[in-house]
């Protein structure tokens, strides 16, 4: 239980902070797609008895390259390319998982096995948190510019394509690490839910990231306790707690908007 708690808190911090950028860069669909396309890699690793990371990394790289190539085919939009690649990858994973040769317990790849995390998993999660925090701190100013207005970012010396690439790289790493604890199907919750809730509660980027990270960690802890005492599945309980926090943020966000109308400070000029 202690390991599981540490794991969800670490994943929550990384997922919540990174998630704020995912939300503002419109990458929620990309996050979901990337996580599903990991599946065949995870299954292969499980069959081979190898660490899951060894399967996940090539799978996500393959998916990213395939999406880039498919989107270049004339008449295929990016959306369609993502959908085709993800369905193919996920189908391939299901095919492998349902083969007679597959070991039992493969469903933990889909739904996560947060109570089964090892010390190695925890170390990887810690490494993820450190890299995400350092990268987001270094890139903060540039990410802020490119997300604000892609059209003029270049005139301020910021390449929107590089900003996208940096975020996708971090997101890919985050998903690969988080998928082991939270599962292939539910991992996207931690990258989208807390950030979406925090967005309703804060209107500055850094406080929003801190809030999202805290909410995600809180949801992780609440989900684990629910799972422990109610006997529900770990990953699913965490995902449900995240959804609950998002739903709670809706009325709270509205209340906040009502209580803080636009006030012009004394001496401000209109126009």
């Amino acid at each position, binding site marked *: 239980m202690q390991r599981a708690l540490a794991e969800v808190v670490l994943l929550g911090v990384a997922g919540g902070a990174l998630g704020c950028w995912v939300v*503002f860069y419109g990458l929620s669909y990309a996050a979901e797609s990337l996580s599903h396309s990991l599946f065949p890699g995870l299954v292969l690793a499980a069959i081979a008895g190898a660490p899951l990371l060894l399967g996940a990394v090539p799978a996500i790289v393959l998916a990213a390259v395939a999406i880039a190539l498919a989107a270049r085919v004339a008449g295929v939009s990016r959306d369609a390319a993502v959908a085709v690649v993800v369905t193919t990858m996920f189908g391939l994973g299901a095919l492998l998982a349902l083969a007679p040769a597959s070991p039992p317990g493969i469903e933990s790849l889909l739904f996560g096995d947060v109570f089964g995390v090892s010390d190695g998993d925890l170390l990887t999660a810690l490494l993820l948190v450190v890299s995400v925090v350092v990268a987001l*701190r*270094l890139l*903060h*100013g*540039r990410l*802020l*510019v490119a*997300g*604000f*207005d892609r*059209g*003029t970012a*270049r*005139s*301020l*010396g*910021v390449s929107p394509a590089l900003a996208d690439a940096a975020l996708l790289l971090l997101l890919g790493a985050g998903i690969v690490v988080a998928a082991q604890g939270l599962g292939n199907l539910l991992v996207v919750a931690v990258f989208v839910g807390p950030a979406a809730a925090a*967005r309703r509660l*804060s*209107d*500055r*980027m850094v406080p*929003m990231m801190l809030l999202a990270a805290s909410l995600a960690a809180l949801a992780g802890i609440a989900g684990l306790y629910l799972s422990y005492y109610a006997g529900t599945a770990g990953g699913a309980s965490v995902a449900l707690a995240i959804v609950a926090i998002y739903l709670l943020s809706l009325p709270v966000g509205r209340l906040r908007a009502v209580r803080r109308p*636009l006030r*012009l*400070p*004394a*001496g*401000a*000029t*209109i*126009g």
Partner: protein
Amino acid sequence: MPAAALIEAEGLAAGYDGVVAISGVDFSLRGGETLALLGPNGGGKTTLLRALLGELPPLAGTLSVAATCGTVPQTERSRLDYPVSALDVATMGTLPRLPWWRRPGRREREAAAAALDRVGLRALAEQTFGRLSGGQRQRVLIARALVQDAGVLLLDEPFSGLDRPSAESLERLIAELAAGGRALVIATHDLEQARACDLVLCINKRQIACGPPDRVLEDVSVLEATYGGAIVEIPGGGRAILPPHHHHH
């Protein structure tokens, strides 16, 4: 002695992927001068602005720009739900002179605050950008260009969607910036705004005319060539362009 030219274009052609979108652009603009860029939608105003920014290399002719260009986009294009204050946006103008790993620090924020003061928005520095009025947002973006130390300001439809008082206060700011030695290029649909500038450049795929407003704007054939003949005489003097650009974005 007249100031040196900050922008000099001779026979300039520019476009996308090697396809010419505008051609025959000839003008020079000195510090302290304002230039109105007049033309229909799709006539190449934005293409010319992007060429001045150095984003599109000349396909023919020459272009020299002897100052940093700061761009002031239409504020409708930036996200109004974005979690930044007016000060955050102005601070973005310090990024070009910082190495990529450095975040703007105290010095940068002080420079941004001074620029907000310059455009009359010191009191609103901590306000969320999306909650400002259209005219205030425009001035925050001008402050961002000032922080960039831009000698040339490129304004894209700065008056669109502004009410009369906001437009007038923006006009005053533009005049002050020009008086301070900056050159301003203002893309606009509005003949009245164009009349207030030192130079008017009419463009519709190619340069139709460039000169002082009293010469360019009084020539009906120039306006007809610019807007495709949709000019009507208003009884009692004056002209209108049909159909006019829709100002409610």
